[in-house]
Structures are given as C-alpha cells and as structure tokens.
C-alpha cells in the first residue's frame, strides 16, 4: 500500500534503484504506486492499463485511477494536454490507487510539471530525456530545463533516451517517424515491466488482438515493448529489478474490471437472468459513454442500444421499452440527469421499472467532465417535480458496480419503480481485480407479467411489495391506458379527487420506504459496540475511507467506518448504529449532501468532511482530519 507514512520510507528504500552495479538481483517491495504521465497522444492510458493487467496476472492486488484531460487533443506539449494513469499494486489488500506515486514516468516536460507536486521527496522520476527540447520546455511553462537546473535535486531522476532507443529498435520496420514515435509508450511499458518483474507475454497477446489487421504496427509495437524490457535488463542505470510478491487474495478466478464495464455486465446479467431483453436508451456523455459502447457490442445477448437524439429521448425510449416489457435502462452523467428529470417523474407516476444510471462528474455545468464528484445525491433524491421518491443505490468500487447494477434492476422490477444507480468518474474508469461470479448463483430476478384478465386493474397492488402489475401490450384482455395524470386507486382512471391523490402519493412513498425491509443489516468496520468516531461514506470514497480508518485504528484509536450502498431508503438500522458513536463524520466529495440527509432524518449532529476538487480523497487527508476530530 502506498500511503503517506510508508511511501516516504518506501521512496528512501528505492534509492537502491540507482544503477552502477553489475548485479541485478530482484529486491522485494510490498507495494508500489506508478503514475504514467504524458501528452494525451502519448498512449499513457494504454501503457498504464497493460501494466495493470500484467500486475493482476502476477497476482497482486491492484487499484487504478486514470486522469485524463477533457480536451481530446489539447495542444501537444501543454499542461492542458497531460494525461495520466496511476496504478497501485501490492502484496497486501489495496483500497485506493494510492495518494502519491512512488514512481512517476513523465514523457515530456508538461507531464513532469503537472505531476511533480504529487511526488514525495526522494521519489523516483523517469523521463524521456529527448522530449525535454527547448520548445517543449517552453510550452510546459518552464523557464529553464528542469533536468539541469537542480530543481529536481530532491528526487531520483532517471533520464532515459526513450525516443532514440525506440527509434533505433524500430529502424528496420519501415515505419515513418510519426508511427515510430507512437511506439514510445510500449518501450516504456517494457522497461517498467522489467523493473517490476512483470512478464510481458500477456501484453504481446493483447497487441496481437489489437493489431490483427495491421501486421506492421503489431511488429513495431512488440519490438518496442521487447526493446524496453531488454533495455532494463542491460542498462547500467537501474541497480536491480523489484519483486512485488502476489497478494493473499481470496481464491478464485479473477479478471481486471473497470466500473463502467462492470456496470454494463451487471445489466446484461440481470437481463439474462430475468429472461427479458435489455434496452439502453442513452446520449453520449463523459464519463458514461463506455457503458453504451460496451453494451452496443453485445447484440447476441438480446441487448438493444439506442443512441438517442438527447438525454430526454434516452430515458423516454427506455420508458417505452419498459412499458413493452424490456429491462430498460438509461445511462448518463449529472447534466443529463437534469434533462431526464421530467420523464423520470412519469416513470414514478406510471410505476414502470427502469434504471437510471448517473455516472457523476465534477459540476456545476460542464465543470470538469473527466473528474469525479458526488454532488448529484440530492438531485437523485429530490431533483424532480412533485413527491416522487426513488430508490437510490451507489457502488463503492469498480467491481461493486456489477452487483449494484444487478441489484438496481432487481429492485426496479420487484417494486415496479424507477431506480437510480450512482457511480462516478473514478469508479467508471478505475479498475480492480474482480472474482468472477458464478452466473447461476446470482440472485433470482423474477419477471411475472400479468396475463389473467380476471380482476385486472392497472393499479391493484401486491399486498407485500405494494407494486402494481406489469401488464404489457400484446396481452389479450388487459388493454388499458396509463399516463401522467393523477389516477384513481386500483382502476387507474384519470382522477382529480383530492383524497385519492394523497392516497396515491402516500402509497407510492410507502412502497419505496418498504424496500428497507430487504436491505441487509449495516456492517460496521471497527467497533461493533460503538466508539469515539464513525466515518460514514457512500460511493467511490470507500477505498480512501477504509484505508484511513485502518491506519488510525492501527494506532489504537477508536474510529470505525460505515459505508452505504442503499441511499434511499436508508437501512432501517442505520440510525441506531450511528447513535452508538460519540461522533459521526460524513466524508463525501461534495459540500455535505449525505450529511444533510443524516442530520435531517435522524437529528444527529454529524459533521462533514468534504472535498470538491474533482479528485478523490487522499488517505492522508482523511487520516489528518480524523485525527483532528478525535482530538477535538
């Protein structure tokens, strides 16, 4: 784990990285955090993702956090165009992608400048020496070359001729300079793979798949990768390679998965298990689009993807599909949620099953579209006209997105209601190892369409769940009309009766509140019988909070962690659990939205811990805050 106190020590140890010795035996490390940074065109995401895959195959626990600019191609060499990918791989359990990189790979001066503040003293920096041309240095906003002006003296800097070495390795491939330049990321990946003893064969296989139709490029990329690997072996620069032994992970078969892919798979699994086709109506928006992309290629799973003309049509088409009996979903981010709000109200009123996925990003307005935030919670709770409660489920890790997407569909169908699933940009693009579930052991999702015309009315209710029948067009004898107008209990006929309106509003609210019956008891990490402080969180802050709480507990302090998956309704035992603690602190990436709910619902004088920077909490930020609260 790369955590602030350890990381410093870690970096100190790494001084052994410095070369000169002929002998290159591996040294052990518990965990390492590498950040690959370069121009958006430099392929750093790819290098990072492949390194992650290699590390996962090597048995480490891992967590990753990509960080890309909103501009697809900001001017080359500028700070605005810097793209980064951080991976934390460890022999221990990993909760976050790491606060600070132990190793920073900077492909140009801008990448160095944009990331330097995060590198701890004595940290390792590997640069492409030739990229530090006068023009690039100026473009990055440096006045002098940082490689020569002693400004990097407190770090261990390795200047590698990446461009030259890649060019030399590929001299006989016949590729032009531009194409050769684009292989630099593979050279770096090879070099770093050697440094941390990662076999590169899985990357070779991956390249074979990717460049199936362009053998020239395949050949060049593989060559660059192997050249980088061999360079690590032969150069005098690195004293040794490092071994990060496998983590003790629960036995099973694993794959590495991002939150967006997990979300897509969760929906497909729910569709397959329910025996109904999946329909996604969606309009592209960062960071949600990958769910659309993933699902668009799964047509043989009876998955319909409709790229609508806007977000309103995205949700509206899904409502139409739900009316017809499909597993209907829509995916978007905050701005799209605003557009969908009116239609979601229709789904509430007509009581149709639907999952609305909000993959949150930093707002307001376009804000920082590629950065995570959790400021849509109150919008999900209340951002509609009229009384329209909706169940809300939030995923806490990339792999958890699978379970949450699945659960969202299950609840939507069981209770005939729209459900909001919340993730964010960090979960969407972050990745972690995922133990493959057994498809046959997933919870049952029962779809029972009404077929019996006897006694049928659109708004009669199941006595237990209060859900109304799903009566789809095509069923003889059940012809009926539904709509947004207030409707009479049972018959569903348009009704302006004041008492009936209140009855229907309250019944729907009771239906949603009743879901709490099946929410599992709240689990407390830490002091089961209460203690000095509990940190309450939801969503992607899980890893940072858990790690911070663990660290403080190791010092013998009484701090615990409760993390919510169900935000509406809240678990029925949550209040009593919170009341066991002297202090309650709600940590979230907004100005205190869950905090408001907790204070309002329970009259508990909870305090907030908030960050609105489009960046996850650092563990160190949380530990220092927790320590202060414990002292104060």
């Amino acid at each position, binding site marked *: 784990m790369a955590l602030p106190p350890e990381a410093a020590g870690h970096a100190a140890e790494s001084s052994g990285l410095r070369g000169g010795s002929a002998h290159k035996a591996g040294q052990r490390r518990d965990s390492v955090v590498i950040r690959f940074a370069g121009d958006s065109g430099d392929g750093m995401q790819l290098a990072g993702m492949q390194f992650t*895959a290699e590390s*996962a195959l090597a048995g480490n626990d891992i967590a990753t956090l990509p960080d890309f600019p909103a501009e697809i191609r900001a001017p080359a060499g500028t700070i605005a165009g810097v793209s980064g990918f951080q991976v934390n791989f460890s022999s221990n359990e990993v909760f976050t992608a790491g606060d600070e990189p132990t190793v920073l790979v900077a492909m140009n001066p801008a990448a160095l400048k944009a990331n330097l503040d995060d590198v701890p003293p004595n940290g390792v920096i590997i640069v492409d020496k030739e990229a530090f041309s006068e023009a690039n240095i100026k473009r990055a906003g440096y006045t002098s070359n940082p490689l020569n002006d002693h400004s990097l003296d407190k770090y261990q800097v390795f200047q590698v001729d990446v461009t030259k070495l890649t060019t030399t390795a590929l001299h006989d491939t016949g590729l032009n300079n531009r194409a050769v330049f684009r292989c630099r990321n593979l050279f770096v990946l090879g070099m770093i793979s050697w440094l941390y003893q990662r076999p590169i064969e*899985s990357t070779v296989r991956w390249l074979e798949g990717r460049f199936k139709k362009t053998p020239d490029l395949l050949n060049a990329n593989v060559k660059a990768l192997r050249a980088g690997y061999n360079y690590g072996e032969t150069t005098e620069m690195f004293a040794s390679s490092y071994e990060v032994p*496998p983590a003790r*992970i*629960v*036995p*099973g*078969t*694993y*794959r*590495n998965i991002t939150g967006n892919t997990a979300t897509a*798979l969760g929906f*497909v*699994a729910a569709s397959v298990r329910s025996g109904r*086709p999946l*329909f996604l*109506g969606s309009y592209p928006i960062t960071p949600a689009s990958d769910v659309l992309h993933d699902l668009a290629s*799964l*047509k*043989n*799973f*009876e*998955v*319909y993807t*409709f790229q*609508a*003309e*806007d977000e*309103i*049509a995205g949700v*509206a*088409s*899904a*409502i*139409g*599909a*739900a*009316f*017809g*009996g499909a597993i209907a979903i829509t995916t978007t981010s905050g701005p799209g949620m605003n557009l969908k709000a*009116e*239609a979601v*109200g*229709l789904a509430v009123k*007509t009581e149709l099953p639907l999952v609305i996925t909000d993959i949150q990003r930093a707002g307001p307005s376009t804000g920082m579209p590629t950065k995570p935030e959790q400021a849509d919670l109150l919008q999900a709770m209340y951002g509609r006209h009229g009384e329209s409660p909706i169940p809300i489920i939030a995923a806490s890790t990339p792999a958890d997105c699978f379970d949450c997407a699945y659960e969202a569909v299950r609840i939507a169908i069981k209770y005939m209601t729209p459900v909001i699933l919340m993730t964010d940009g960090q979960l969407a693009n972050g990745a972690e190892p995922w133990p*493959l579930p057994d*498809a046959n052991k997933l919870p049952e999702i029962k779809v029972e369409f009404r077929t019996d015309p006897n006694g049928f009315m659109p708004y009669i209710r199941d006595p237990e769940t209060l859900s109304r029948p799903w009566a789809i*067009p*095509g*069923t003889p004898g*059940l*012809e*009926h*009309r*539904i*709509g*947004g*107008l207030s409707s009479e209990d049972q018959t569903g006929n*348009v009704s302006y009766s004041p008492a009936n309106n209140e009855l229907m509003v309250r019944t729907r609210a009771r239906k949603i509140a009743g879901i709490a019956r099946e929410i599992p008891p709240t689990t407390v990490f830490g002091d089961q019988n209460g203690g000095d402080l509990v940190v309450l969180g939801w969503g992607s802050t899980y890893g940072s909070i858990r790690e911070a709480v663990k660290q403080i507990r190791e010092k013998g302090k009484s701090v615990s962690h409760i993390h919510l998956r169900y935000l509406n309704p809240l678990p029925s035992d949550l209040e009593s659990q919170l009341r066991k603690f002297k202090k309650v602190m709600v940590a979230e990436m907004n100005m205190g939205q869950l905090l408001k709910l907790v204070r309002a619902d329970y009259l508990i004088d909870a305090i907030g811990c908030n960050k609105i920077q489009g960046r996850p909490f650092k563990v160190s930020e949380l530990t220092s805050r927790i320590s202060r609260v414990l002292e104060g």
Partner: protein
Amino acid sequence: MATALSRKDFVSDQEVRWCPGCGDYAILAQVQRIMPEFGIPREKIVFVSGIGCSSRFPYYMNTYGFHTIHGRAPAIATGLKVTRPDLDVWVVTGDGDGLSIGGNHLIHALRRNVDFKILLFNNRIYGLTKGQYSPTSEVGKVTKSTPAGSVDFPFNPITVALGSSATFVCRTVDVEQKHLGEMLKRAHQHRGASFVEILQNCNIFNDGAFNELSDKQIKADHQLVLEHGKPLIFGKNKDKGIRMNVQRAEVVQLGNGVTEKDLVVHDETNLSLAFMLANFEAPLPTPVGVFYATSRPTYDGAMNKQLADAKAKSGTGDLQELLNRGDTWKVN
C-alpha cells in the same frame, strides 16, 4: 381472429372530455371506425401521446394506451416499437407538442423511419393551456400571449416532415371523414414512419382557422386533393388546374385551349414536387392528400436484424462466457 371487430370495440369506457364542437371528436370517431378494417387484435395496438387536448386521445381508445409527457411521445414510442416490433404503434401529438417542445423527437423519429404512425392534430394554437399561439400560428396572430400579433414565423408541418426525410407524408382535414379515413389507411399500410397532418378546428381558441378547407360553400376552390397519377385539378366545377410556368406553379382555368394535358400530374414518389406542393400559398390552393411516399428500411427492422444477425453469427450469448472474457487468472 375469430370474430371481426366493430367500431364499438374500440370505444373505451372513459367519458370524452373535449369541448363540445372540438374537431378532435371527428378524428376520434373516424379512427375508431377505421380500426376494425385493419384486422389487428386490440391487444396489439398501442396509442402513445404527449400532452395537449389532442394527446388525451389514448384514453378514449379501447386499446393499450400511454399518455406521456409534453413532446416526448415519439421517443417513448421508439423504445416501445424497437423492442416490440409485433405491436401496431400510433403516436398522437399536437402542433405544440410535436413541433415546439417535441420538435427534436419528431424530426429524429421521421429520419430514422421508425415503423409507427404519427397523427399531428394541427389547430394552430395551444388548446390545453388556453389559447397561446403555437409554432404553426400565422404571423400577426393575436392570442393571449401575442396581444400585438405574433412576430414568430410559423413552421409548415409538411415541409418539416419532408425536410426530416420522412418516408410517408400526408395532410387531411378533421371534418373530411372519407378523406381522413383514406389517409389513415394509407398511413397504416406504409412501412416506416407515416406522418399525417390533420387540420383540426379548435372552436374555443382558434375557431375557423381552416374554414377555407372545411366550409362546404368555398372549400372546393381552396382545396387541392392530391391523387397519385392524376392531374392537379380543383374548383367547384373541377375547372381549375395547376400548370408549370417555367419553374413556378400557377393556377390556370381549364378550357380555351388549356387541357388536362397541360397540368402537372401528381407523383407521390417525386420529392421535389412534394416540396413544391407543400409550399403552396394563396392564390394557389392548399393541397391535401399524400405529398410523398417512398420506401426505406425501418429503424426498428434494421436494429432487430442486427440482433438476429449477431445471434446467427455468434450464437445466443452465454452469460458465464461473457463474465469470464478477457485475461483471467486463478488464485489458489
């Protein structure tokens, strides 16, 4: 089907709540009358509407129905039709619902050619909200929201539909029961999005907006009934026609050497002709009938074909195989 259905089978038990004298009654009556002719079981028929007086329509049809939200009916119907190609889907909308708040969904449904019928009730006014001007109201129109007259240039629904690459475009009039019935039949026969503009009288907020086309005394001189393959003739005595004068259409009096041979012959497959007819302004008559009809693959058909092809090629998806995809590793 065992027994043929009758008009009554399509009448729901709900009390119809339009203003007495509203043109919507005539449209409802004709739709209910024509439905049995299609021979489709009631449970397979769905009416989807937006919001407006016109959009109350589904409540009165004894089929499946969905009264949705303002302007979004085409989008909702798209999701329904794509996943349920077995259904006979009708969209009912108004000039405000379909051309103002829902304009975006209308044009995209038309260009995609989703296989449903769109009935746009055009009364050139916002009825339900009590009489504001609409996107089809004429410049100068005095309404509650335009006391000094509208300065808003109107849409022509037919050119909007043609411009959206609609594959079937027609216009008819609420009180022209026979013609309305024919247009509904043509729309129903068509595969793809059929756009039917129905000129509808709102006797409360815009009475007489289409008098020239519905008043028996004068309509023959103002209405040009389009019939495929027939010359463009109109007038009480069928003695007026449309002739091309270089590139412009003009009205000519038949006789005195002018014969039917000199007139434009209607061709539903000619898009340029359709645009020209759609833009007719006085003194040219107002065309009703089918402006344009062509055939193009439907969106729902194409999408379902992609799904079928994917299944044929790779077999029906295996969930466990999907979950296990990519590089996996075992931890013992």
